[in-house]
């Protein structure tokens, strides 16, 4: 990931400002797509903060997202706690979980980490269902709030802006520099005195925090919460695809991937619901074989080529 400049921050601020008005000009169907897109923007930008520089592919998004959503559900439904309190608790729990997973796996090679995160959402779902069925008795949880789509949208927008700002600061900090060195060559990073494990663990913890925050905000949209719904392994894959499709080399790269893919995904889910897995597979293959650095990477390549052409 390249360091971010002040001009990028300025453009981002402008975009966030413009995005505030989207619910005022759209409603119904398009607003609901905007909510989904905003959710993926927050999730995949946060994903790319960790996986972009380190090249560790995290598939834990669905698990953290589920923790956030489920805790809001159980807190409001079983214990009559307020939404805002659960909104604060969920991300902290998920961040602690991410911290533990990070400590256990990130000291080792990247493969172990990928494998561990691969089944994480499913495993937590199994555990939660088991606890629910055997000790709590209730199966579904209800989340009733006065929020409508536009409120959820604005909350997600502020999370996305927060993630961006966080990433921008990280990118310009010593930690961001350290992560870039780790991504290029971990041995070198260790030799120049970087505590590689901690740098990775801190960033991974932040992705856990943000994913749970997004999951908690979306809980009122579901209104009925069941472990099978909120712990979705598919979500983790979608986030990976969108971030890589846009390109994880830039802070704003995932944004470029999210918007077209969200629309494509909505269309396939409605038109060809049985073929959605196939689309997912083709998207992965496309990224690896055609766009290994994402759309942004490809555009930068083209620009470099044109510039070289001018000099000759």
């Amino acid at each position, binding site marked *: 990931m390249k360091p971010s400049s002040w001009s990028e921050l300025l453009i981002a601020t402008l975009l966030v400002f413009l995005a505030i008005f989207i619910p005022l000009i759209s409603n119904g169907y398009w607003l609901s797509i905007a909510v989904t897109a905003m959710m993926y923007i927050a999730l995949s930008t946060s994903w790319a903060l960790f996986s972009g520089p380190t090249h560790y592919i995290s598939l834990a998004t669905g698990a953290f997202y589920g923790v956030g959503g489920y805790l809001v559900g159980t807190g409001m439904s079983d214990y009559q706690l307020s939404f805002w309190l659960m909104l604060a608790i969920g991300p902290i729990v998920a961040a602690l979980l991410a911290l533990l997973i990070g400590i256990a796996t990130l000291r080792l090679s990247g493969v172990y980490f990928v494998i*561990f995160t691969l*089944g994480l959402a499913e495993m937590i779902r*199994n555990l939660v269902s088991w606890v629910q069925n055997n000790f709590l008795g209730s199966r579904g949880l209800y989340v009733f709030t006065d929020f409508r789509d536009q409120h959820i949208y604005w909350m997600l927008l502020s999370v996305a802006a927060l993630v961006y700002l966080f990433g921008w600061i990280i990118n310009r900090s010593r930690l961001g520099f350290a992560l870039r060195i780790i991504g290029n060559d971990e041995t070198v990073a260790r030799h120049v005195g970087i505590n590689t494990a901690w740098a990775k663990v801190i960033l991974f913890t932040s992705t856990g925090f943000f994913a749970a925050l997004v999951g908690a905000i979306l809980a009122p949209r579901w209104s009925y919460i069941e472990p099978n719904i909120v712990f979705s392994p598919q979500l983790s894959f979608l986030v990976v695809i969108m971030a890589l499709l846009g390109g994880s080399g830039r802070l704003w790269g995932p944004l470029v991937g999210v918007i077209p893919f969200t629309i494509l995904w909505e269309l396939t889910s409605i038109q060809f619901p049985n073929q959605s*897995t196939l689309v997912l597979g*083709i998207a992965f293959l496309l990224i690896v074989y055609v766009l290994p650095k994402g759309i942004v990477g490809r555009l930068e390549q083209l620009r470099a080529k044109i510039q070289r052409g001018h000099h000759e």
Partner: protein
Amino acid sequence: MDILVSGLLLSGTYALVAMGLNLQYGVARIMNLANGEVLVLGALAAFWLYTTSQISPLFTVVLVAPISFIGNWLIYRFLLLPLVRRSKTQGNLEVDSILATFGMSFVLIGVMVSIEGGFFAYKYLSSPISIFGSTTSLSRFVSFLIAAIIGFLLYLWLNHTRSGVAVRAVSVSAEASGLVGINVPRVSAWAFALGGMITAIGGALISTFITLDASIGVVFTLKALIIVIMGGVGDIRGAIVAAIILGVVETTVATLIDPGLTLAAAYLIFLLILLFRPQGLFGRRPL
């Protein structure tokens, strides 16, 4: 005793599938996350041939073997070899192969769902038999026997033939084997194809006693990966011990606590291995 017997019988096929993955990761250096889908494909073939044309799953194994061998060879040659050539480091290759095999696994799931969207349920050799006083089905026992025979043959081949030694040499160091005149790309392609074949056979066997569906592959990928890591990459003896541990622990949890917690049990084992013996049960600590 019941738990021990069914756990052991289960671990036979687990070990077989893990050996397949071990060949692909240890020798061809491809982290194949579509491994579980290849397994389910083998299971689907057994189910489909049995329900449509009454072909015995044991005969399907013979059919599946050459087809999956060729299929996996083609995948390696045309989809994965370009990635091997493109990547500068092992880390790059790992990321690329993980993403590419994810893609393949989803494509395979998509194709399989369109063939059979429901469960692959059929009855074959389900008559009860008794082993050490505990009752189990004949299909479990037969699958275990076949898995054990294939595993044994694989062991003999790897340890007592020239080509087997070449495969092991590549798994130790691809660079050094190239220097002593081993055709590394060819050996890797063969190992990948062989690994895929073994996995598909394992799938056809498993389908005789576990009901699968098109999207369950990832669970088997995870289990195979956990076994490979527990046993140590490239270590057949370790894989067998690890498969037995996983099979018995899973059966214990499923019988005594809840069948829904088998994955959590597998994760617990995985976590313990990562924390205390990341180099595998019998592996040596890297210097």
